[in-house]
């Protein structure tokens, strides 16, 4: 599955960058993410809980900040396994910032998510169903944290 889009935030790019390169900080804005732990300078672990009808599952993931080049290149590789089917999910996320003024930043993102194993039977549908709302919540959260009330 591919995801692509932009988020406009009325805040300086340095402030946006500081949040998006800190997974613990960013995770506070992402619905369902919990238990985020830093393993080393660029590696983090965490989990996501979701349910589909009678199926309850945890998705344990490890993310690596593969590239950090302010302001236009952040690459994050995520790998994880779900607790129900033990399937493997791999995500490759690229993001970059552009700004038209000191107080206006556009965050552009592009992600590819691949599911291997039985989770593929329902995982793709769940990812698609939740992705839009999650991105909406992330947007709302980033704006609330970074934008100065008018």
């Amino acid at each position, binding site marked *: 599955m591919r995801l692509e889009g932009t988020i406009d935030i009325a805040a300086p790019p340095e402030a946006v960058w500081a949040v998006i390169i800190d997974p613990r900080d960013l995770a506070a804005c992402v619905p369902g993410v919990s238990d985020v732990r830093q393993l080393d300078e660029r590696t983090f672990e965490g989990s996501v809980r979701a349910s589909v009808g009678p199926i309850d599952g945890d998705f344990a993931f490890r993310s690596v900040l593969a590239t950090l080049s302010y302001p236009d290149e952040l690459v994050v590789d995520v790998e994880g396994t779900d607790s129900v089917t033990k399937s493997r999910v791999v995500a490759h996320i690229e993001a970059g910032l552009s700004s038209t003024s000191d107080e206006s930043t556009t965050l552009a993102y592009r992600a590819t998510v691949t599911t291997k194993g039985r989770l593929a039977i329902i995982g793709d549908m769940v990812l698609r169903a939740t992705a*839009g*709302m999650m991105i909406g919540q992330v947007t709302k959260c980033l704006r609330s944290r970074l934008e100065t009330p008018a």
Partner: protein
Amino acid sequence: MTSTRNDRPDTDVDVVVVGGGTAGCVVAARLSEDPSRRVLLLEEGPDPQPIPPIVSDPKRQSELILESPYVRMYDVERSDGSSFPLLSGRIMGGGSSVNNLAVVRPMRVDFDAWATYGGDAWSYDALLPLLRAIEDDPDFGDDPIHGSGGPLHLERSYRLDETVDPPVRALIAAAGDAGLPPCHDLNVPDPIGVCASPYNIVDGRRQSTAVAYLEPARGRPNLRIRADTTVVRVLLEAGRACGLEVRDPDGRTATIGARQVVVAGGVFHSPQLLIRSGIGPSDELTAHGIAPRVVREGVGRGYQDHAVVYVTFQGTTELREDYVIPKVRLIAKSDPDRATPDLHVFMQPSIRMEGLPPLLPVSVRLLEHRATGRVRLASADPDELPIVEPALLQHPGDVEAMAGGIAFVRELVGHPALAEFYGDLVNPEPDADMLEHILSSYISYYHGVGTCRIGAADDPLAVVDAGLRVHGVDGLWVADASVLPTVPHANTNLAAIMVGELGARAVAAA
């Protein structure tokens, strides 16, 4: 847990049935009713006895599909390069051991279509007595279109006129205003409406064909059953099938002699076995270095299936599984001007994630397809899964029909009765390109047919005749859903059982 493998050689049987799937169990059980006929049933998967609860208990269906070793996945690609899985059952009973247990007859139009390939013997009127003989339907009993006393028990646990579940009441009201009436019996020849689904369950136990057909036959001295056995190829001699080359789990190969061979490996593996045996399209045989015995260009071609696309709404409440399909399904039209319904619509259980409101997916399942796909060999190695090119939604008319189905669903959930439960569309986003959503997210309803289809000998894409005998080979039949030339407007399990019954009759009459 034990398997029915045994160490005695299985030489000199009268009939060998390759594949203990939905249809293969029917063929073996029916043919062994004659005590003078020695029947051998071979299954590549296991035959656990007793059947494990994860298979027999319908309440564990999600676990069965997501976690058990009895489901095989085939990765296939969409045209945008993304992938999704097709599934089959790898256990005695095949798909009937892992499916959602729905007992849905093909519609009259399906039989009409099949009769154009197979003649009057495939018409609705000709096959209705067989459909009645298969089933034991206590809700309708022995009436002109239903049967009682057949091997396959079915019942409707969820009567529309009895339900008090608010979401289902709302669905019935909304569908009624959309022109879809309550449909207490979807096994009428021309069903449409909000339908209570019949299931093959007895006392909480799945009635796969391994249970409904094979279990009562297991004690017969003339029926032998071998699981965990791979069939390498069908052996041919002077234009006639004369047996099989097989391999056991330890890699030991052997030959089995048989006067009659029935291939019932399913839509993926029946064509794979025929091609490995030298019966197939010339390009496939050449590509894999297989000596051609009978060139039939239709082997592996003609694949059809049902495409499924999800649209998801923000929920105003959670729908627990007790409220939702598969107990109730809509049989609807993608275009009100159509003569025949072409959709199954299911209101699916909610998705829940902390920090998000409940999300309510609705699945739109397109019941007819114009395009045909193909099953090809990845190699001549029997351990390698075939390559499946399903060609779902490859015809503009099919995409248009799916878009029409999604438009129907969006209008339906906007009905005041359902608006109590369903909010805004969240996937795809309301202003998104619906065509892009359809083509990048469709999956399968797991109802493949057509890879060894029926037809006349001079039909270049026909593989078997109307009596399921392989063209150009004596003593060889195909009896599973792969013979169906078009995908029915229904789940395919009952159609596969019907084909199994027809195969048994054809072999017995030969």
